[in-house]
């Protein structure tokens, strides 16, 4: 499910994002409202983005990258980072006898995996990437595409460890 944005307005942070990025402009901090507007109208490496803000006290965006619809990315922004996160599976989905091997495999995969790392939030295993809050739109889009694709690869890789 996605919220279609009309993209009629551009955020100031991303108004001139692209080849003309200059150091001064990159100091502008990204916020979720500007991302909703910018991503809804953007394409990166042929991929598009469906953005849905999720109701709550703290702004979180659910972003579906075209071609990776089964692994929606949850994005939130703090003063120090843009955190992008995909939920992979829950602990109770893992075969108990495979838990140690899975953890070993996750630790080994996490280092070479481009732009992403593996972690755990409560009972959920996640893959995530973090960016500077002054990242450009292009950098955010690259992160989203890479993370969503990584998540699909990881789900296939870890399939044998799951019930």
């Amino acid at each position, binding site marked *: *499910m996605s919220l279609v944005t009309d993209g009629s307005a551009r955020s100031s942070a991303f108004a001139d994002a692209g080849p003309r990025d200059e150091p001064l402009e990159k100091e502008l901090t990204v916020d979720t409202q500007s991302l909703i507007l910018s991503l809804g109208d953007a394409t990166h490496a042929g991929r598009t983005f469906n953005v*849905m803000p*999720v*109701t*709550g*006290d*703290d*702004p*979180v965006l*659910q972003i579906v990258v075209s071609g990776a619809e089964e692994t*929606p990315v*949850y994005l*939130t*922004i*703090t*003063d*120090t*980072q843009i*955190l992008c*996160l995909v*939920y992979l599976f829950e602990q109770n989905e893992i075969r108990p006898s495979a838990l140690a091997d899975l953890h070993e495999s996750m630790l080994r995969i996490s280092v070479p995996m481009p732009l992403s790392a593996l972690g755990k*939030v*409560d009972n*959920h295993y996640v893959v995530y990437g973090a960016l500077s809050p002054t990242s450009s739109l292009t950098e955010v889009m690259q992160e989203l595409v890479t993370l969503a694709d990584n998540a699909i690869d990881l789900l296939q890789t870890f399939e044998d460890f799951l019930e």
Partner: protein
Amino acid sequence: MNKPKDWPEETRAIQATQLAFDLSSDIQRAFRVASAMQDLNTSAMVRKVLQLPYRKKRIRPRLTVTLHDDDFVQLAERYGLPASDRAAIRQCVADELSAFASRFLTDPDADTSVK
């Protein structure tokens, strides 16, 4: 081990993401259930809620199951029938599915697990 450094704002952001994931999952589940109850596909259900035009064509109700050799062996054991008597096994399958539907329609919370 020393107490690890905590980052309250980052922890709060992660919790917000967790809440968002749970909420999204609940919303998706609600739409799957609502669309099934109204014989619509989920995208039509979303459009209906948003009062946008949607195709009212009902999904053709289909219920099929493909039984493999291993399935017949397993079912035969459960029904106390010879695995070779596939007609009788199919009859038992039909009866069991019908019984499930009767129970479910009168009490959706009924325990449907195999005893």
